[in-house]
């Protein structure tokens, strides 16, 4: 054993022996049909700080289990806790460092007055919620004013039908330094909901088939989300009123419907969008009131509109992205240039040439089609989509551009698909 490992062991040993003044050793409390404890709630009440509660497999009809001491709860062999549509299940109340793992939690009450959740963490820091499977809950995992919480590898599947009577799968409110990783979220109102959350990480989650947003961000600064998949959600992903957001390597796909976005940016500043894939969305990215964004190395394929950038955006730099087979590439209602830059992107609809063989086209690419420009002025003109007339108009406009906004153009369109 190397000396580093040795030191760690020593450190752990010291740490464990420190509270030995109060009680000699933490003990295990087992819960099962034939054990000393048959109810989780009673076991929790009987437990002391530092104890472990091991719940053996079986179905437990319990609800409103409040945890107010530092203990860990582990489900062994997938025990089921069924709230029977009465209240929530676990509440960690003003207690740090609680672990809840390995449970199947079912049937949390739907209420219009209280936010019942399968697991609620309230004013408690350093808690870990992992490997749970939550079925048919109102709210899945709800964190309030709790810092340094980890929500790992949970599966939250709801049966939401209406937005008004459904909660979010993972809901964070006034939290810092949370990490939400490897979860699977489906069938709720929002997959992940962030409000007043900062310095947190959302990684490797799959959020799919939720009624509203796969991920919903409000007033949450300096967060990172990467490698997530958001697909087939009612309205895609919404990131609003936040700054310092890093979005990297996510997949936004198949958010298809009359009001669906891959990614909706509203009042986002000083953020970056890198290496994401937007595929098969009605609107890939819709940016509104968003400033100083770095949009780099993303790929848009088969979207209705790849990028809708409103006149209220400034200093958005869109570089080295791939735009492949989108019905409309860029759409903008603006009649001014702003300071947004499109540079060095690959556009599959580019028809220019590259005589000097430097890899970028010799004539600029104008990604705003005449028809999409007309649509911004008169949305009803969409009924002429795919008609011969608009095709002819487009052709005429390509030869001699008179109407399309001159200011949105890519001076150095890449000839080849950009790889990184």
């Amino acid at each position, binding site marked *: 054993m190397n000396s580093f490992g040795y030191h760690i062991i020593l450190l752990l040993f010291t740490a464990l022996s420190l509270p030995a003044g109060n009680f000699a050793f933490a003990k295990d409390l087992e819960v099962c049909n034939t054990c000393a404890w048959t109810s989780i709630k009673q076991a929790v009440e009987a437990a002391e700080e530092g104890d472990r509660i091991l719940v053996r497999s079986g179905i437990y009809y319990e609800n409103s289990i409040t945890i107010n001491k530092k203990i860990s709860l582990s489900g062994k062999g997938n025990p089921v806790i069924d709230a029977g549509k009465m209240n929530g299940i676990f509440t960690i109340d003003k207690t740090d460092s609680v672990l809840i793992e390995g449970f199947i939690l079912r049937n949390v009450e739907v209420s219009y007055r209280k936010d019942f959740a399968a697991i609620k963490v309230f004013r408690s820091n350093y808690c870990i919620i992992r490997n749970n499977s939550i079925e048919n809950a109102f709210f899945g995992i709800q964190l309030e004013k709790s810092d340094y919480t980890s929500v790992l590898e949970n599966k939250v599947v709801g049966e939401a039908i209406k937005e008004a009577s459904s909660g979010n799968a993972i809901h964070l409110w006034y939290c810092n330094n949370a990490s939400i990783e490897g979860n699977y979220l489906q069938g709720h109102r929002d997959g992940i909901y962030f409000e007043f959350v900062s310095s947190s990480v959302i990684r490797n989650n799959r959020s799919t088939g939720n009624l509203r947003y796969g991920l919903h961000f409000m007033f949450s600064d300096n967060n990172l989300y990467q490698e997530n998949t958001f697909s087939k959600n009612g309205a895609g992903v919404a990131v609003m009123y936040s700054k310092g957001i890093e979005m990297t390597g996510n997949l936004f796909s198949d958010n298809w419907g*009359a009001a*669906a976005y891959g990614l909706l940016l509203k009042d986002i500043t000083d953020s970056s969008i890198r290496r994401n894939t937007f595929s098969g969305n009605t609107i890939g990215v819709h940016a509104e009131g968003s400033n100083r964004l770095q949009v780099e190395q993303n790929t848009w394929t088969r979207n*209705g509109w790849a990028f809708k950038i409103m006149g209220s955006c400034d200093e958005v730099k869109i570089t080295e992205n791939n735009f492949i087979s989108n019905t409309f590439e860029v759409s903008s209602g603006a009649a001014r240039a702003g300071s947004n830059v499109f540079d060095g992107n690959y556009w599959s609809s580019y028809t220019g040439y590259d005589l000097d063989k430097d890899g970028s086209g010799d004539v600029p690419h104008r990604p705003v089609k005449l028809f999409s420009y007309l649509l911004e002025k*008169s949305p009803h*003109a969409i*009924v*002429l*989509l795919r008609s011969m*007339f608009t095709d002819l108009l487009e052709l005429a406009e390509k030869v001699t551009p008179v109407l399309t906004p001159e200011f949105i153009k890519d001076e150095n369109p890449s000839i080849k698909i950009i790889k990184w």
Partner: protein
Amino acid sequence: MNNSLKIIKYTFYDTLRSWWAILYFMFFLLVTGGLLYFSAGFTHSVASILNIILFIVPLVSIVFGIMYYYNSREFALLLMAQPLRRRQLFLGQYLGLAGSLSLSFLAGIGLVFLLFGSMEAIGLLLMLMFAGTVLSFIFTAVALWVGVQYEDRTKGFGIAILIWLFALVIYDGLFLAFLFVFEEYPLEKAATGFSILNPVDLARIMVMLRLESAALLGFTGAVFNKFFGTVSGIAVSGFAMLLWVFLPLQSFLRKAGNKDF
């Protein structure tokens, strides 16, 4: 009735025997076949096939219709000397003509579907077939109507092509201009009305609402879906289509019935 059937049968086979019908059939076979062969699946290429149908079917129907009318004038004159009612004669001619054109089209697209299509897309195929068939009947009627109006072939051809161009392109231009002039007003109903009046637009929208791209239509699409989803909406659009067959046909038959050939 028996006579009328004979005329239909004669015109039908006469058309099928000519190169036109074969070419028309081959065209649909090759183009849709090619599109399907190179694309991921039937639903993916429906938009392209739709565009081809909207372009080619009215064009061929109107050009071939008027050509057939002018070419068969002498034969029609001969038949008029027989104990035949003119209405029977011309109705038979129309039905035979439109029938054989539709058959070429349906066979072309149907054969391709049998080769490359899948059962899930059968609804879309039926929709395309319906649109193409109705357009054939409409534009053949228009062609005959133009033919009977103008003795001069050049003039007749010119007018026929102009009508085709109007339905396909010019109408949409006016439509767009209208939308821009009245952009401050709520235009959902006007837009629906406008697109019902033109059979080409109507066919395009009815197919598009069944495609994935319906989501692109946004709230206008929602209005359309609401309209075309209701019984009255289907009835109104079906009625509009039938009216487009009936009006030129009736006008043609009346004119041909009274005309001093």
